[in-house]
C-alpha cells in the first residue's frame, strides 16, 4: 500500500510556476507536452513542442552567429537535448519555456566556443549545472499536508515511467533505505536518488493537477 504523498511545492527558491503556460491556442500547455515527452516518449507532443520553439531557437542562433547553417544546427542540438532530458524535467525546475531557454542557451554557448576554437575544458553543463545539489533527503522529510485518496495514488503510481516506479516501490512500498533500494535494484545510489526525486515529483504533479 503506497503512502499518501504530498503535493506541496518544494522550496522558496523555485521560480514562480503556472501550469497553464500555453503561448498558443490549442490543446496542451508547454509543461504538459514536455511531461508527455518525458514520461511516454510521446511523438505528437514532441512534434508540437518542436513547432512552438524551433523558430525562437533559430532566431537566437541567428542573433548570435549571423549564420543560417549554425542557427539551423542550434535548433537540432537544442531540440535533441530537450528530447534527451525531458524525463528529467518536472515543475520544480520552473516553466517548460525557461527550461527550454536554458537548454538552448547552453547549447548555443558550447556551439559558439567550438566555432571560435576555444578550449573544451569546460562546457555549459559544468557552468550551469541542472541537477539538484538540492537532492536526497527531501522525499522523506516531506510532511503530508493534504488528504489524498489511496485509489488516486495507486493510479498515478501505475502511470509512472517504469524506472521511477521501481524506485518508488522499493522506498515506499517495501520501506527500504536508499542504500538498500539501490542494492536491490542494482543501480548507483545517485541514480536511485534522482529517480526517486523525479518519481515523487511526478506523483506530486499528478496529484496537484487532479485536485486543482
Amino acid at each position: 500500500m503506497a503512502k499518501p504523498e504530498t503535493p506541496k511545492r518544494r522550496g522558496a527558491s523555485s521560480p514562480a510556476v503556472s501550469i497553464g503556460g500555453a503561448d498558443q491556442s490549442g490543446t496542451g500547455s508547454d509543461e504538459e507536452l514536455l511531461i508527455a515527452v518525458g514520461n511516454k516518449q510521446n511523438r505528437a507532443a514532441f512534434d508540437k513542442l518542436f513547432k512552438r520553439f524551433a523558430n525562437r531557437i533559430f532566431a537566437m542562433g541567428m542573433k548570435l552567429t549571423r549564420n543560417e547553417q549554425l542557427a539551423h544546427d542550434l535548433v537540432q542540438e537544442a531540440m535533441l537535448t530537450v528530447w534527451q532530458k525531458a524525463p528529467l524535467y518536472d515543475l520544480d525546475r520552473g516553466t517548460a519555456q525557461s527550461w527550454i531557454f536554458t537548454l538552448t542557451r547552453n547549447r548555443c554557448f558550447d556551439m559558439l566556443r567550438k566555432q571560435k576554437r576555444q578550449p573544451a575544458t569546460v562546457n555549459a553543463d559544468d557552468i550551469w549545472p541542472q541537477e539538484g545539489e538540492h537532492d536526497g533527503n527531501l522525499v522523506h522529510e516531506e510532511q503530508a499536508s493534504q488528504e489524498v485518496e489511496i485509489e488516486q495514488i495507486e493510479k498515478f503510481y501505475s502511470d509512472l515511467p517504469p524506472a521511477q516506479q521501481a524506485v518508488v516501490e522499493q522506498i515506499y512500498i517495501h520501506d527500504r533505505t536508499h542504500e538498500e533500494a539501490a542494492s536491490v535494484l542494482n543501480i548507483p545510489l545517485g541514480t536511485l536518488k534522482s529517480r526517486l526525486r523525479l518519481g515523487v515529483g511526478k506523483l506530486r504533479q499528478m496529484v496537484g493537477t487532479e485536485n486543482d
Partner: protein
Amino acid sequence: MTEQITLHPTQEMLAGFASGSLPAGLTVAISAHVERCSACRHCTSEMEAESTVAWLQDSDKDEAANDQDFSHMIDAIISEPQQQAAVVDSEAFTEIHVHERSVTLPRVLAKVASEGLVWKNIGGGINQAQVVLDDETQCEFIYMKPGSQVPVHRHQGNEITLVLDGSFSDEMGEYKASDFVQLTSSHQHQPTSEEGCLCFAVIDSPLTFTKGGARLMNPFLRYKFRKATSQRV
C-alpha cells in the same frame, strides 16, 4: 562556510551570466561564486526567467517554421535514447593541493583544473597557474603564501578575483572565501595576504606594475596577455 559572503557580482554581470553572453573566463568565475552563494543563485534563476520572456517576445514576429525541413530533424531526434537519470560524476576530483594546503574547489573550477595546472613562482611569495578559457580574458589561479605581497599595480581594464580559500586585503578592504572582488582601471592596489590564500582571477587587459623594478615586468606582461588570449586548442 558559516560567514556571510559580502561581495557579489553586479546585477549586470549576473544578467550577462544568465543569458550566456559573457566571455567564458568571466562566466566560469561567476559560476564558481554562484555555486557557493544562494542569494546569487536565486537571482540568476529569476534572471533566467526574465531572459526567457524577452527571448519569446523577441522572436514573436518570425515566419512560421518550414515544416518540410524540420520533419527529418524530428525523426532523427526521436530515434535517440532519452536520459532517465541525472548523470552524477561522484568520482570527479574537487580538491586541489597547493603547497601545504588542500582546498575544495567549486565544481566548475575543479573541471578547469582537471587537465593539470602549471604553477609559476613569480616572486614575493606569489604563485600563478594560467588557464586559457577564451580569447578575451586572461585567467589564472593565484596562490599567495602567508605574509606575501603583490607589487603595487594598476589595471587598464577589469579584474575579477574570486577568493577560493584564505583571505587577502588591499587598501580598499579585506576579502575572504567566496567573495567576488571587482576592480576597474581607476584602481591601483597592493594586495597582501597574512594567512595566505587561493584565488581565481580573470583579467580583460594586462596589469601594469607601477613602481620601481616591477615596471620592468610591464612589456612581458603585455606579451603574456597577448599570448594568453591568442592561444587556440
